[in-house]
C-alpha cells in the first residue's frame, strides 16, 4: 500500500484496524469488545495452558486430515472431470449444488451417518473445502492449450507422462488457487464441525468462553485462529506467485 508516495510495510492496514479496536475497547462501549491490548495479554497467558494446547492439537488434527482428503480426492476428480465429458456432465451439477449449499444444515445428517466423533468433524471439514478445489482443477485442465496436448502426443508421451509432465503443471496455477480458497473454507468447516458435532477443540473453547461471557479469552482464541488461517493462506498465495511467471503465458 502506498500513502503519499511512501510504501507502507505489509499488513499495515491490520495495524490500523487493531488501533481502532483498541480505541473502541477503551471507550468501554460494550463488554463485548475489550481493548485489543487486553486480548493480547490474555492470549499470551492462554497459550501455555493445557486446555489451549489440547484444543490446538485436536483442531489442527481434524483440520489437516480434512484438508488432506479434500485435496487428495478433489484434485484428481477435478482433473478427470476436465478431461472426461461424461464424468463432467454427471458430476458438475452436484459440485455446483454443494459449492453453494448451506453445508451447516447438512451436519446433523452427517452426525446420523458417521456418529459424533472426530471422524464427522473431518468429513465436515473436507466437505467445506473440496468443491472449490474440484472446480478449479477442472477449470485448470479445461484451459490447457490444445497444441501442448498435441505436442506431447506427437513426441510419443504415454498417458502417465502427459499427465505428470504436462497436464498437472499446465493446470497448477488454477489448482493452487482452488486449494487456497478451499483451505480457508476448511477453517470454517472445522470450527462449525466442532461446535455442532462434538464439543472439542477450538469449537469447545468458543462455546465455553461465549457462554461465560469471557470476551477477552473469546477474542484471543479467534485471533489465534485468524492468524493461523492468514498464515496458511499467505503461504499458498506465495506458492501461487511461484508459478505466476508462466500462468499468464500459457
Amino acid at each position, binding site marked *: 500500500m502506498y500513502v503519499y508516495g511512501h510504501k507502507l510495510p505489509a499488513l499495515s492496514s491490520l495495524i490500523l484496524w487493531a488501533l481502532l479496536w483498541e480505541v473502541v475497547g477503551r471507550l468501554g462501549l460494550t463488554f463485548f469488545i475489550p481493548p485489543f491490548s487486553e486480548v493480547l495479554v490474555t492470549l499470551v497467558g492462554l497459550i501455555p495452558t493445557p486446555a489451549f494446547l489440547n484444543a490446538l492439537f485436536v483442531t489442527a488434527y481434524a483440520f489437516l486430515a480434512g484438508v488432506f482428503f479434500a485435496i487428495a480426492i478433489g484434485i484428481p476428480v477435478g482433473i478427470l472431470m476436465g478431461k472426461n465429458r461424461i464424468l463432467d456432465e454427471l458430476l458438475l451439477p452436484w459440485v455446483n449444488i454443494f459449492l453453494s449449499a448451506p453445508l451447516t444444515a447438512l451436519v446433523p445428517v452427517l452426525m446420523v451417518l458417521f456418529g459424533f466423533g472426530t471422524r464427522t468433524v473431518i468429513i465436515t471439514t473436507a466437505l467445506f473445502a473440496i468443491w472449490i478445489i474440484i472446480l478449479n482443477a477442472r477449470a485448470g485442465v479445461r484451459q490447457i*492449450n490444445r*497444441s*501442448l496436448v*498435441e*505436442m*506431447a*502426443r*506427437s*513426441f*510419443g*508421451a*504415454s498417458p502417465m*507422462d502427459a499427465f505428470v*509432465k*504436462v497436464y498437472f*503443471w499446465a493446470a*497448477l496455477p488454477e489448482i493452487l488457487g482452488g486449494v487456497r480458497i478451499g483451505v480457508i473454507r476448511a477453517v470454517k468447516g472445522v470450527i462449525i464441525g466442532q461446535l455442532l458435532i462434538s464439543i472439542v477443540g477450538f469449537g469447545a473453547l468458543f462455546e465455553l468462553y461465549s457462554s461465560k461471557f469471557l470476551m477477552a479469552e473469546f477474542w484471543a482464541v479467534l485471533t489465534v485462529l485468524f492468524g493461523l488461517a492468514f498464515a496458511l493462506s499467505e503461504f499458498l498465495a506465495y506458492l501461487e506467485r511461484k*508459478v505466476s*511467471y*508462466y500462468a*499468464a*503465458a*500459457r
Partner: protein
Amino acid sequence: MQPIKSDTRRAVTETDSAVSVRNVSKVYGDVQALKDLSLEFPRGELTSLLGPSGCGKTTLLKIIAGLLEPTSGQIEVNGAKVTGPGPDRSFVFQDFALLPWASVIRNVAFGLELRGVAKSEREAIAEKYIREVGLAGFEKKFPHQLSGGMRQRVGLARALSVNAQVLLLDEPFSAVDEQTRRKFQEDLLELVKTEKKTFIFVTHSIEEAVYVSDQIAILLPRPSRVSEIIRPSSFRDKSVDNIRRDPEYLDIVDRIWASLRSYVE
C-alpha cells in the same frame, strides 16, 4: 490433377518418397475436409502445402503426423503405414507449443525426455541443436523471456533433436514478424541442405512457399484436393540473395496467385 512438371534434376519415382499419401479422405460430421487426396513427398526435399484458408492443409499435416485419423486412405512413411504419432516424424507448431514452466534446454530436450533418454545425454544433444538454431547462451531462459521468433527457434530445435527423418512444420513462421520471418526462411533453406531430412511445410504465403520449396503442392478447397504440383528448377541452387529476383521465382508466384485468386473471399 495436372501432370507433375518435368524436373531436370531427378525423376520422381515411388522409391524416392519419404512420405506417401494415398487416397486420403477426411470427413468431419457432414463436412468433407479432404477428398481422395494422393501426394508423394520426395526424400530429402522440402515440400510446401499451399492453399487458401480452409483448404485442409493443416488437416493433412496432422493426418501425416498421426494426430488425426483419416476417414479413409492411408499414409506411408518410409514404406510403413502410419497408425499414430511415431519417432520417424516430428512436428513444429504454429503457436510453438513450448512448456512455459520449463527452460529452453528442457523444452528442446523434451522429445528425448519422453523417449527416456538419460538427462546428461539428452542435454548434450539439446545444446548442439540450440547452437544450430542460433540460441546459444539462452539455454537457461524461459519461453516468456524470449521473442516470438526465438520461441519458434526453440520449437525447431526440439523437432530436430529427436532426429526424426520427416519434419512437419505447421505455418511455423506465421506468428513471427516479417523480418524475423525472412531470416527464418533463409535459415530453413540452410537446414534442408545440411540436415538431409524431408520437410513438409504448411504455409498460406505464396512467396514463402516458392522461396523455400523444392516442390509446391497447391491445395484447393471444398473438398480439398491437390490441384497442381510445381517444382521450381532454376533458382534452387542460387544464393539466398538472388532468389527473389529470379524470373522463374516471379513467374511461379504470379501463376500460383492466378490460380488461387478466385478462391479468396
